[in-house]
């Protein structure tokens, strides 16, 4: 009975002697000392405690094992091993904490970016609205109509005498306004269409309508608008806007239309 209980104890002491002989333990263990200090420092680091509490716990557990083995004078390899696990665990804790802090900054940054993007979009909208408002005011001053072809401005026959393609002196104010509009919107093209009433020969009317459109183009070029931005067309009597049976209707049909096709809106989108 006594022998039986004693035997394992004897075996254990023999084993521990054997272990001691294979790891000659110095009086102080450097790696254990390092692990202690590293853990001490890390456990007081609030960022680490906040982000990696589990890793710190594991480091502490490993440190406790290392301390126990050291006290029991077990082999140096074992103390070294657990000390190593302590320092690795603490390194992991540091990396996790670093990642989390960086991710938090990233979230802040995403918010900041969103607000800047919104501001930017707002500024662009405001700018576009300002431009649109300005355009509308100018077009209203020219009594232009918004149609599916773009803005259409009709110059009545007061600009021309009957059967004449020379601009009447009173036309210069309207021409100046159109030129100023075209200078404000340099990306806009203009199409000038000449029209006549139905009195007279078709070919004659076609030529006359061409000549009138051309006269307006010439006047705009003299105001400094590039010829490349202005095209002309003679429509003759083909597109009346009023009845040719009355003189007031015919007067309405003798006209020049200036069309500003809609420019594509240029608001750039910022993708998230």
């Amino acid at each position, binding site marked *: 009975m006594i022998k039986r209980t004693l035997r394992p104890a004897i075996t254990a002491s023999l084993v521990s002697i054997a272990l001691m002989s294979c*790891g000659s333990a110095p009086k102080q263990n450097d790696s254990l000392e390092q692990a202690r200090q590293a853990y001490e420092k890390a456990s007081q680091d609030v960022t680490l405690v906040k982000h990696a509490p589990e890793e710190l716990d594991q480091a502490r557990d490993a440190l406790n094992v290392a301390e126990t083995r050291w006290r029991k004078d077990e082999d140096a*390899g074992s103390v*070294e091993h657990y000390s*190593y*696990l302590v320092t690795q665990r603490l*390194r*992991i804790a540091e990396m996790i904490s*670093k*990642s989390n802090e*960086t991710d938090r900054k990233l979230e802040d940054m995403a918010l900041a970016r969103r607000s800047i993007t919104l501001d930017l979009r707002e500024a662009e909208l405001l700018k576009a609205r300002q431009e649109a408002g300005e355009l509308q005011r100018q077009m209203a001053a020219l009594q232009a109509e918004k149609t599916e072809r773009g803005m259409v401005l009709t110059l009545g026959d007061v600009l021309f005498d009957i059967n004449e393609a020379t601009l009447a002196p009173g036309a210069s104010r309207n021409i100046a306004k159109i030129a100023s509009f075209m200078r404000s919107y340099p990306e806009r093209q203009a199409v000038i269409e000449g029209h006549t009433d139905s009195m007279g020969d078709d070919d004659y009317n076609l030529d006359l309508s061409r000549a009138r459109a051309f006269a307006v183009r010439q006047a705009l070029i003299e105001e400094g608008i590039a010829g490349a931005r202005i095209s002309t067309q003679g429509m003759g009597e083909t597109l009346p806007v009023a009845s040719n049976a009355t003189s007031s209707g015919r007067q309405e049909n003798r006209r020049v239309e200036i069309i500003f096709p809609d420019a594509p809106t240029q608001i750039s989108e910022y993708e998230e």
Partner: protein
Amino acid sequence: MKQTLIRFSALAMMVTTLSACGSKAPKPVSELALAGSALQSAETSGAREYAPIELRIAREKKAAADNAMSKKKYATAQRLTEQARADAELARATAEAEKSSLALQEAQDNIKMIRDEATRTSTGASK
């Protein structure tokens, strides 16, 4: 680089110390599996690219553990395996931290670009 050298020499030391003490410990089968999945998880996180040194240390320790296993030095294998697992987890955490920091850098550049654009637009609007 210096750190790597120190770690490798520590590993070499560890192996010699440990192997000197081969004993009749149980086979560390589940520990090996844990180390294996930690390594896999590190690689999935992009450790090969973002934490190559840490990953290499972990792999070499795992290989040493496998070697010790095949020679039935289970105590040695056990320690090496535990270390390999910790090393692999460090590789993974390092890779994650590195990726986050790269993403932050990119976000900072991006925001700077947008800010510059905003400045240009607002000066354009007030012309």
